[in-house]
């Protein structure tokens, strides 16, 4: 991979820019969610991690976690990457939002849909590109096996993932969500271009 496209020398400012990108994405998602369920929901991204493929096992475990996977198509270049949204507290989240534990999967699917489309729009706006998300697909397996299968799709043309550690709040309840962006090389170059415009 081109050295310029590597995250090895990523600066604090660049991490902040990614955090900002994440915060804009989840803020849109939170307002859509609030409208849907009639309760005020807040979301924020307190931390962003840039990881190489070979380090993935440090961030994703063998535990079975419910998640939602969306493929991202860029209008000009086709398949550009994936969003993998993990809900380690899926049951708690579903109960909190709809108070019906029999509908966990469909609730998670809908929340995943809202988050991925909001997130996708925010990224596209910020990068000045057109991104179309595929319908989300529910995944229930070891989170590391899912992320690995996603990463394999871009491995020929990419080596980095971006993990947005996200917190969802409704009144006093806080729930952790993990939003992972798996960009191919081209998509990553757009993100680096955004960094290049900083300062």
């Amino acid at each position, binding site marked *: 991979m081109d050295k310029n496209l590597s995250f090895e020398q990523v600066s604090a400012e660049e991490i902040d820019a990614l955090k900002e990108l994440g915060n804009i994405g989840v803020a849109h998602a939170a307002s859509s969610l609030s409208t849907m369920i009639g309760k005020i929901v807040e979301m924020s991204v307190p931390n962003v991690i840039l990881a190489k493929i*070979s380090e993935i*096992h440090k961030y994703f475990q063998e535990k079975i976690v419910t998640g939602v*996977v969306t493929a991202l198509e860029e209008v000009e270049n086709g398949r550009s990457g994936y969003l993998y949204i993990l809900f380690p507290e899926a049951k708690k989240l579903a109960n909190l939002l709809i108070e019906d534990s029999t509908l966990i999967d469909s609730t998670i699917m809908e929340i995943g849909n809202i988050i991925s489309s909001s997130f996708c729009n925010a990224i596209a706006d910020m990068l000045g590109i057109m991104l179309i998300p595929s319908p989300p697909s529910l995944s229930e*397996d*070891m989170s590391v*096996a*899912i992320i*690995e*299968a996603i*990463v394999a799709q871009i491995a020929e043309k990419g080596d980095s993932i971006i993990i947005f550690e996200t917190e969802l709040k409704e009144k006093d309840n806080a729930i952790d969500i993990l939003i992972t962006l798996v960009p191919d090389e081209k998509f990553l170059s757009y993100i680096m271009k955004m960094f290049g415009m900083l300062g």
Partner: protein
Amino acid sequence: MEIIVGIGEVKIARSGVLKTIGLGSCVGIGIYESKLKAAALAHAMLPRSNGSKTAKFVDSAVEIMVESLVALGGDKRNLIAKVAGGAQVFKHLTLENLRIGERNVEAVRETLRDRGIRLVSEDVGGNIGRTVYFFASDGRMLVRYSIGDELWI
């Protein structure tokens, strides 16, 4: 002693256990030198190398493992291989371009055949994730499924 093999990596050991977690569509390829009692484990993501020799790809991962074992004093004739993984973890094929799991497994079989390395056992396919342990002292491989079942191959 447990040695973790990351995604797209190869590790060699003469004692302890090599471990790779979360094989989805990827394959865990173990090669064991029975006289030397040395083991190599790879976590490869894609079937064929695009020219770069890294353990990301099945063919180059096997090449790296064989070269490393020979460099340690091993003999190609003593090598045996085991493989696990290559699942289809996505239920919706729209997410997956190319049925990578199946193609990875096929690439393992072909690469080993071309190099004259005997594939003694395998646990491949299906639709759930696996974690693999490869024991350096005797070449046993333990496959643990995400749902908790275990299988020795």
